[in-house]
């Protein structure tokens, strides 16, 4: 089938896969940190405080990632900031991720009833204590699935960095195609590689979701259901 030929080039694909993984990890880590901070700022009472962060989020959510990558890589040198391909891709992906995560965090926070904030403040808690101990834990059920589906598309979207010439999985795959003339087999291997990254992420998320459901809902109720014989649970 030609897979043997293609797999002889595995070291090339593996190098690309490592870049894909690195870019994904940096985008998710850096973008989530930025998104958390910006998300909190987007819930600020003052419109003046919100305005610049709102502009950032709208810009990065309202334009194609492809264009953002081009502009960061091509236009920044005009302002004296020349970035190599990998740092440029990282910057683009971190900013893009930050904008989406900020919006997810903001909507999660605003879904928590205001009575929770008042109760926290009335007990003398400070803003950060309130957020860390009262508000954010309650957003988990809302935020986790939204973040997860965003992260999954993000991992696959790192392939867009091939457009500025980053040697990630797609770019390296195309090199292997050029050498072997077996595009079908190469793309099957690439698809498998993405799947191997994404599938555990989605499993992890459904586990987290199940866990937070068990914790937040009527715990006695959940345990009572578990003790029932399987046939009565409606899961036969």
């Amino acid at each position: 089938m030609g897979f043997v030929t293609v797999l002889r080039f595995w070291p090339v694909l593996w190098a690309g896969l490592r870049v894909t993984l690195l870019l994904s990890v940096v985008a998710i880590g850096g973008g989530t940190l930025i998104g958390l901070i910006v998300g909190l700022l987007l819930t600020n009472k003052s419109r003046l405080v919100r305005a610049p962060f709102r502009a950032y989020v709208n810009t990065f959510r309202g334009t194609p990632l492809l264009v953002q990558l081009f502009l960061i890589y091509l236009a920044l040198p005009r302002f004296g900031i020349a970035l190599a391909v990998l740092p440029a891709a990282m910057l683009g992906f971190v900013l893009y991720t930050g904008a989406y995560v900020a919006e997810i965090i903001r909507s999660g926070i605003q879904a928590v009833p205001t009575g929770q904030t008042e109760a926290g403040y009335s007990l003398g808690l400070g803003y950060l204590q309130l957020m860390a101990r009262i508000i954010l834990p309650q957003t988990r059920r809302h935020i986790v699935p939204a973040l997860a589906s965003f992260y999954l598309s993000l991992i696959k979207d790192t392939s867009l960095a091939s457009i500025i010439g980053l040697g990630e999985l797609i770019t390296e795959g195309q090199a292997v195609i050029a050498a072997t003339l077996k595009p079908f087999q190469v793309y099957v291997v690439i698809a498998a590689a993405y799947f191997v990254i994404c599938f555990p992420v989605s499993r992890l998320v459904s586990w987290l979701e199940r866990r937070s459901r068990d914790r937040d809902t009527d715990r006695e109720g959940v345990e009572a259901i578990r003790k029932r014989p399987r046939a009565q649970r409606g899961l036969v």
Partner: protein
Amino acid sequence: MLNEVSFDVADGQVIALIGSSGAGKSTLLRCINGLEPFQAGTIRLNGKAVAGSHRHLRELRKEVGMVFQSFNLFPHMTALRNVALAPTLVRRMPRREAEEAALSMLDRVGLAAKANSYPAQLSGGQQQRVAIARALAMNPTAMLFDEPTSALDPELVGEVQDAIASLAHDGMTMLIATHAIRFARSIAHQVVVMGDGAIIEAGPPEQVLVSPTHPRTQALLRTVLSGN
């Protein structure tokens, strides 16, 4: 919203705020706790003005307990953690010590047995009693109650009122916004009647609730009592 509202609460006194919905009872309580900004006038707690920086307001809030109409318990924590949280975070009490104190607070409202229950597993009356214990755990000098029994099923009102009455018995300074006239009469030293953000009438309950002089108080009592 509020206008011409002026009164003093002496240490250990219980004041009932009555008035139709929208009269400004809740707004007043929220102003006292610094949750609602106000434009003119002064509120003093133990001689310290409620105003100024977040830090200062935070200091004041530690001295005042607040109980809300809708309980506002933290749904992701057990009753015990709800009560122990603020002492550990705000008073920097060691966790074990705070939880022991929390348990005795829950015992005070008759709910020590429910310490490990989550709010969703408790009835409305039990949730409100946990909320009272949570406010008490900060050892406040005064307590504010914003219609503490309005969201409860009728059969659960009594247990919450009993918990509040026992605080009054222990000499806690309290401001209670309520529609429960009989309860106000049995517990309050002073009754303040509010309407349209102003005080209509104030005085001891025997006077204000039994032989009110102001026609609006009379009208209010007629509607509320016929509703009970």
